[in-house]
């Protein structure tokens, strides 16, 4: 039983770090869930920080960032009107994952569309 416990612990520990396919997710699901369950500037900021942290750690560990993380952070920054940073993350997503091309183009359209409206 102790062995099983150890096995479970090992399994848990490996989940918390890097996946078999080489991705680091940090506490992504947890902070995302919190920001949905109790939407507030605080829970959203926590989730945003988690996204930044995931990207930072992935870089440190020399890993590909998990799919979608850069695009998701880009949208948060776009909503904060930080368009320059948003654009950087959008193109980062597309460079690493060409599958996101259509989505990223639509996001940039929305971002520039907003700008046009303001004019």
């Amino acid at each position, binding site marked *: 039983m102790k062995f099983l416990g150890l096995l479970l612990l090992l399994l848990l520990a490996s989940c918390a770090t890097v996946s078999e396919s080489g991705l680091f997710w940090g506490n*992504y699901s947890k902070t*995302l869930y919190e920001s949905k369950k109790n939407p507030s500037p605080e829970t959203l900021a926590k989730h945003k920080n988690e996204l930044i942290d995931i990207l930072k750690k992935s870089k440190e560990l020399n890993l590909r960032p998990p*799919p979608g993380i850069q695009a998701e952070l880009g949208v948060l920054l776009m909503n904060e009107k930080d368009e320059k940073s948003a654009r950087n993350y959008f193109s980062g997503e597309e460079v690493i994952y060409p599958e996101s091309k259509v989505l990223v183009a639509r996001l940039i359209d929305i971002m520039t569309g907003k700008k046009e409206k303001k004019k």
Partner: protein
Amino acid sequence: MKYLLIVLIIVNIVSCGTTKKALYPGMYAEMPSSILFLPIVNKTTSAEAQLLYSATVAEPLANSGFYVFPIEVTNEFFKREGITLGDQLKGITPLRYNQMFGADSILAVTIFKWDTNYFVVGGNVTVELECTITSTKSGNVLWNQRKEYVVPTGSNSGNILADLIVTAINSATVDYVPIAQRLNKMVFDTMPFGKYHKRHLKDQEVMVQEGKK
């Protein structure tokens, strides 16, 4: 719990299944590299189920080697079209998702059951799900699973008194995120690996159990 684990392990070892290739030939023939997760069809009364499921689904899918479209972002697009529930997507052809997002495949999830059970010691969440991955190119179903999952929530230290106390505390404040994570790991256990996984196309002979109810 102790016996359940042992039984589970034994079942896992002795049960003979079918190869992934035989069960999901479409996944190997079409090799989708990206998956778009659609808003959930929730047949339960639990709004929580939907929230927990969609917050935890991207991780195991991406870990299986697929590009998973950022759910938070794609959900915003659906919302702009007035779509928040999976039921509203009826009649939309798979090809449309390829045009809208450039997705190779879509994942549709229906939650039939999400029951939380507490026992004297421990507890579980019993979930019945149907998950279907459909190609946006051919329109073929590439992977499908309808199954009931029992995910234990309790602790199991071997000390009944300690477990009782932990269960009592847990019942009030169970953190369901790791439980939903465990569930989603179980759900995608039979999935052929995608292009970002080192065992992509090397798992065709792996034996799996077909999840059909």
